[in-house]
């Protein structure tokens, strides 16, 4: 799955919650679904379609279950947001696997430093939450939903 296909079709959607916002998606496999959620997160932070691939970061996480894997993966993106002002609109999860009860994920995130003159500021995301988090396999499609604290 290419970056373009996710962005062009906007596979993620945002839905409402009293104070916060859900990012939802479905994908043909977990990797695709997690990629779309991460890209959705990027578009929540910067709304304009002009975040270029100037920097690439590799993200590797290991967690005890699928939900915490998603939590940890997206938290890594927020660390880049605050620590280095890096915004990613191009995220590809290359591999998710479970080995001896441990879930692991490898992803490539591409983007650039936030530039208020260039980018349209969306919403600063404070944190990822577990609240009503959903990861399910529905007739071969992986549906994922996460609530982020804004």
């Amino acid at each position: 799955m290419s970056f373009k296909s996710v962005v062009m079709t906007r596979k993620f959607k945002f839905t409402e919650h009293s104070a916060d916002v859900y990012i939802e998606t479905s994908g043909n496999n977990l990797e695709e679904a997690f990629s779309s959620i991460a890209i959705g997160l990027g578009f929540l932070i910067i709304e304009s379609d002009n975040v270029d691939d100037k920097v690439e970061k590799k993200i590797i996480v290991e967690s005890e279950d699928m939900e915490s894997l998603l939590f940890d993966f997206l938290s890594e993106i927020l660390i880049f947001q605050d620590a280095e002002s890096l915004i990613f609109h191009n995220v590809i999860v290359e591999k998710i696997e479970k080995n001896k009860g441990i879930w692991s994920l490898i992803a490539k995130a591409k983007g650039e430093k936030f530039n208020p003159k260039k980018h349209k500021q969306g919403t600063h995301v404070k944190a990822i939450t577990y609240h009503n988090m959903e990861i399910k396999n529905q007739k071969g499609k992986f549906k994922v939903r996460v609530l982020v604290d804004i």
Partner: protein
Amino acid sequence: MIYEKGDFMKNMNVELKKINDFEWEIPIGTVPNMNVPGRIFASEKLLNKIKQDRTLLQCAGVATLPGIYKYAITLPDGHQGYGFPIGGVAALDYEKGGISPGGVGYDINCGVRLVKTNISKVEMCEKIKELLEKLFEYVPSGLGSKGKTRIKSEKEFDEILEKGAKWAIKKGYGKEEDLKHLESEGCLDLASAEFISHNAKKRGMPQLGSLGSGNHFLEIQYVEKIYNEKVAKVFGLEEGKTTLMIHTGSRGLGHQVCSDYIRKIEKEFPEVIKKLPDRELVYAPAGTELAKKYLKSMSAAANYAWCNRQMILHWSRQAFEKVFQKSSEELGMDVLYDVAHNIAKIETHKVEGEMKKVYLHRKGATRAFGPGNPEVPDVYREVGQPVIIPGSMGTASYVLVGTNEGMEKSFGSTAHGAGRTMSRYAAKKKYLSETVKKELGEKNILIKAASKSGISEEAPGAYKDIDEVVRVSDETGIAKIVAKLRPMGVIKG
């Protein structure tokens, strides 16, 4: 292993028992395993809003926590959060209960500071435009805003985490007297930087001394009405004089501390989650090492927030000095008070006649201690602690005073704001920033924002009625109204 959670959340119907016109009970048994009832402080009007989301069920969920005393409280501004509702209080036994990062929230010590001035409304009208420009220039705000101060080393940053506003004063950001007028004097002594992750520090270091975005703001207001002359006099509030309000928190540092500890706790105590209706309610059991480490780290994040507000006050004073060509002393820019809205503290409260040591969680709630309490600064002790409740953008804010009735009824706590009725996302779709700006302009409120979406998200229509929220606080006696502040100009992050 495919998850589907949230069955507990699906039933939205909660039967309430009426205690009186402003207090309602969620009976034990509403959800399984409740240890105490829930208690809602609200008028019928606010209750109707509260019923529209899952606030009541979340309140019932909090009542399932171990060692919880009296009842899980939802305040008049309560709205749905994740796990814990926002606008809530929970007292968990210090030995048999626990401490929950979700019961504090991701923005640790998000809070407000109110600063007095002797500048009249009329004088302010002439300069407000210029003042907003200067404040915008001097105080970093907006998405990914960074502080103007570069912290030299992690060692120095650790000192900030452990000393809070005291560090800022030592470095020349303000004066010694400022400290006396901050909750906990702007520094929780049990804070330690030792158990804070490198990631959390990485997120927080570049942001120290910045407003951020979201609902954070700087506001110029005037005192529109005094309701209680005696207390207003002690607080130094005078009708027609202007004030400055600062609303921000611990930025990325606090957010990461919360995330880190939710993860640590669930890894160490997986059996805890199994019993909970929502994973976000996870707590570190009392007496464990992790409970101690979270408390120390959360306190350090709270200190960061007090330091942050102190630095912002310093630059705000400089902006005032520049515009009014007078020193901040001549302008009478003294801190009235500074309160935390998201925090957990070890406190002692009377429960059924006995004093109990508890982890007191306030999530979207303001401490409101009554007269005579040693935690209340000397100058205010006779009347009670000042309580600052900000309205939404463009609506009034209020100063209240804590009561001894509140100590009995709500563990010395009251509401923290208007409380949302509409999601940020929905508000953004519904309100155009230009329209909001125009409407505020018609009310003579100027706005300067780092982003357009920031204006729409915080549109006044997205919030509950602040006047009604403080009226309930006053009627129930958990905190009494002292003064109403009307906005003149806002800087939005």
